[in-house]
C-alpha cells in the first residue's frame, strides 16, 4: 500500500537528445534527394484532365514541358483569357514550338536526344485546335514521344 505512495520528488530523467540532430539530418537528406525544384514559374492556369490508364513519366531530365491554359490572374488584363502556350518562362505562339524543341534537344546529351519526351500539360477545358497545332509542330520537329499529362481518376 505504501509501496505506491512513495513521497519525495523523483524527477523525470532527462531524455538523451544527443542523437536528435542525426535523426533530423537523415530526414533532411531524404527530402533533399526527392526534392525537385520547379524551374519555371507558371504563367498559365490549368487543371489536368482525368484518366485511368496512366503511365508514370520517368527520367525527368528527358522530359520537356509545354503548358497550355488560361493566363493567370495577373496577366489576364494584358493577355486576355484565351488559351495560351507557355514555353519555359514566357508566353509563346504555336510557330515558336518547333524552335523551342530544337533548342531543348540540342541542350540535351547526345545519347539522350532520341529518348526525348514532351509532356503536354494542358487545361482540360482547352479547345483541341490549339493542341492539334502543337502536335503538328512536334511532328515537324520529330519530337514524337509525347505524354498527355493527366491526373488519376478516383
Amino acid at each position, binding site marked *: 500500500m505504501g509501496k505506491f505512495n512513495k513521497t519525495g520528488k523523483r524527477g523525470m530523467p532527462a531524455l538523451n537528445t544527443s542523437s*536528435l540532430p542525426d535523426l533530423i539530418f537523415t530526414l533532411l537528406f531524404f527530402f533533399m534527394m*526527392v526534392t525537385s525544384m520547379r524551374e519555371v514559374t507558371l504563367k498559365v492556369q490549368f487543371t489536368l484532365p482525368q484518366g485511368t490508364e496512366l503511365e508514370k513519366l520517368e527520367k525527368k531530365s528527358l522530359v520537356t514541358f509545354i503548358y497550355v491554359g488560361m493566363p493567370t490572374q495577373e496577366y489576364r488584363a494584358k493577355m486576355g483569357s484565351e488559351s495560351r502556350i507557355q514555353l519555359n518562362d514566357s508566353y509563346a505562339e504555336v510557330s515558336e514550338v518547333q524552335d523551342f524543341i530544337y533548342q531543348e534537344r540540342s541542350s540535351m546529351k547526345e545519347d539522350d536526344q532520341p529518348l526525348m519526351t514532351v509532356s503536354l500539360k494542358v487545361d482540360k477545358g482547352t479547345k483541341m485546335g490549339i493542341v492539334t497545332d502543337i502536335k503538328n509542330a512536334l511532328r515537324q520537329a520529330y519530337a514524337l514521344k509525347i505524354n498527355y*499529362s493527366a491526373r*488519376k481518376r478516383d
Partner: protein
Amino acid sequence: MANRNRKVPDINSSSTADIAFLLLIFFLLTTSMDTDRGLARLLPPPPEKDQQDQTDKIKERNILQVYLNKDDQLMCGNEYISINQLRQKAKDFIENVNNDPKKPEKVQKNIPFFGPMMVTDKHVISLQNDRGTSYQAYISVQNELVAAYNELRDEISEQKWQKKYADLSEDEQKAVRMIYPQRISEAEPKKYGGK
C-alpha cells in the same frame, strides 16, 4: 608549454538540431512530390511531300472510325454512343472473335510463346476530332481506347501465364504486343462550321 594538457573546449552543439530543422522545413516546403503521370503516345512522323494519302489503301473493314465533334459528342462507326460504350466497342473490334466480315481481317502469324495465331494486325482505330472539341473529352476517348488494349492484353496474359500484362517479362510482353498491336491513328482534325 606552461599548460600542456589544456583541454579543447567542446563546441556547444545543442543548436545543430535547430539548424537542421530549419533546413528540413525549407526542403519540406519546396518539395513537390508530384509524380507526373499521363497517357504516353507516339506521334506519326511528319508526312513527306511526295507521300500519297495512305488512308484509302486500308480496307474499310479494318478501320474503326471514332469521331468527336465540337460539342464533345462521340460517334463510333455510324452511330452516336456514350463514352462508356466505347471501350467494349473497341475491344470487340480489335479482337473480332467470330471473324465477322465487317470487322478487321485476321492473318495467321507466328508468335513466340503462342505459336501460330490469327491476329488482326491490320486494324486501325482512327480518331478524328474537331478543333472545338474539349481536351478532357479527347483525353477520355484516348483513355478508353488505351484501356481497351490494356484489357485485351491482360486477358490473354492471364490465359497464358496467369499473370497481368505488366508483370510479364520483356519478351513475353513483346509477344503479347504482337497479338494486340496498339494502332490508334490521330487524323488531322476537321473544322465543321465556324468557331
